[in-house]
């Protein structure tokens, strides 16, 4: 859980909880209702809802946490407790494009180091960092189920497979 520890760190310091929870558009509220309707217990919707908050606000921020606590009738600590367990839940801002490079065995032996080197060189950052303009974050992650098409990375939710350094250039250059 090493990566999660880096996420827990800001929480071990005082977190400023706002008085007002986050608000969302009627369409997003309807989407949230749709998830809540799937389960006999509201709390079950916590992960799907965290992803929605993250999508709408860039990350799961304190106002988003407060919103979830209200919406799910839970305590704020319940929300943090769950948020800090899962590596895909971001409790700190991440770049507009989150490049998640798989570092596990099949990718590793099929050229991951070259991919990581190219990505980092191009963006001028190291894994775990975000570019100053807030566009890119690079993370090293564990197997994403693309071992047969290794090496690979995911940019946000999009899979990019059978990567080569040249292909990395093309993909990064083509992002809007």
């Amino acid at each position: 859980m090493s990566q999660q520890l880096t996420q827990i760190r800001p929480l071990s310091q005082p977190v400023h909880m706002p008085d007002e929870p986050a608000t969302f558009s009627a369409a997003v509220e309807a989407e949230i209702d749709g998830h809540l309707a799937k389960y006999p217990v509201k709390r079950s919707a916590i992960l799907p809802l965290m992803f929605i908050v993250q999508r709408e606000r860039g990350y799961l921020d304190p106002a988003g946490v407060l919103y979830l606590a209200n919406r799910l009738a839970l305590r704020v600590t319940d929300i943090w407790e769950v948020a800090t367990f899962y590596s895909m839940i971001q409790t700190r801002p991440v770049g507009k494009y989150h490049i998640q490079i798989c570092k596990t065995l099949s990718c590793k032996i099929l050229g991951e180091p070259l991919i990581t080197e190219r990505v980092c060189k191009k963006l001028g950052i190291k894994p775990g960092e975000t570019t100053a303009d807030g566009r890119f974050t690079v993370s090293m992650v564990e197997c994403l189920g693309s071992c047969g098409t290794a090496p690979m990375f995911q940019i946000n939710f999009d899979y990019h497979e059978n990567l080569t350094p040249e292909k990395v250039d093309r993909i990064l250059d083509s992002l809007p």
Partner: protein
Amino acid sequence: MHIEAIGCEPLQLRRVHLENSRTLEVYRRNGGYEAIKKVLDSMSPDDVINDVKKSALRGRGGAGFPTGLKWSFVPKDSPKPKYVVCNADESEPGTFKDRYLMERDPHMLIEGMLIAAYALGAKTNYIYTRGEYRYLIDIMDQALAEARAAGLLGEKILGTDFSCEIYTHTGAGAYICGEETALLSSLEGMRGHPRMKPPFPAVSGLYACPTVVNNVETLTAVPDIIKMGGEAYQKLGTEKSGGTKVWSVSGHVNRPGVYELPMGYDDMEKFIMEDCGGIANGRQLKAVIPGGSSVYIMRAEAVIGKDVRMDYEGLVAGGSSVGSGGFIVMDDTVDIFESTKNLTEFYKHESCGWCTPCREGTDWLVKIFKRIDNGGGRADDAQLMLDLCDNIEGKSFCPLGDAAAWPIQSAVKRFPEDFAKHLVGSRKE
């Protein structure tokens, strides 16, 4: 990527190459939803369970537990609601078969779940998919909507009294949530810590109600079992493990991909060297991990000329196990010390932190690897690693601890030369 059935007619892979294979129309035109019709027309829940028992289908998630037997543990007289939960968390390194089954043939999974739900009396069912597979959740949602519109899901399915719903659910990047009790904790909105067994999920699972958790590939096998009958399905494989199995192959082979083979396929050498196109770049086979990262690593010498049969018993006899069926093939450029370090980092990262042997043990193992990497290797480090593994294996709360120990134990014992060269004389003083 290569997707192919070898040594058998494709069952699970029957439709993957068809155009628009994920649509209801193509599924129906190619035998889809005939099994659920047969079930609703002419079979009782017990008939279904008996057929699955006869099929000798064993769970494809890793443990290989007989599926029919698992289903029969669900108490029939319980007044509580019952649940079928599909385990689509697929996060075992080297494993990606469920991804292609869902991507190419989502209705096959829906039909399998419907039949399971009918057999167990479940009205609400979930597909727990790993968070990174967001695009698959979208595909499944679309297929579910199509099925609902066609009267195959929801109230009074196909005009009968059988009503049932299936929903998708997302994980959020935690390997441990593939373990069935951790998955249920996660589905209840908690941290993904495993739970004590017993009670087993069949008795007290989701929301403390009777629950069956099955892997994607297990459930997608069910429609064919119903259509051809349990006995016929069993005969495609061996007496103890019926039917066909879908394997994922990655690493240094010429044709990585997803392969469907009859259970008991002869033999592993032929599979790697011929069916998967042999070792890439004209190099030599050095090692293979046949069941996803959590099984014993095998030396080339244990594969070449050894007629290792590809089923549960055959792979155990060959010195490993089926696990999730994820082959990771390594050529002679790979240093097994490095590959083992890589997997140890994986288990350290994915240890849920609940119990001490696994949380601390995996952390210490990574620290030892790092110390050796930094030139601080000691001659007795291999033994130290084995001692640490000994304190994890069998002493952890859930099988992830064992899964972390096995790759290390087997690598240290089977590739001593790769470890020795990092230990002896590597100290920078």
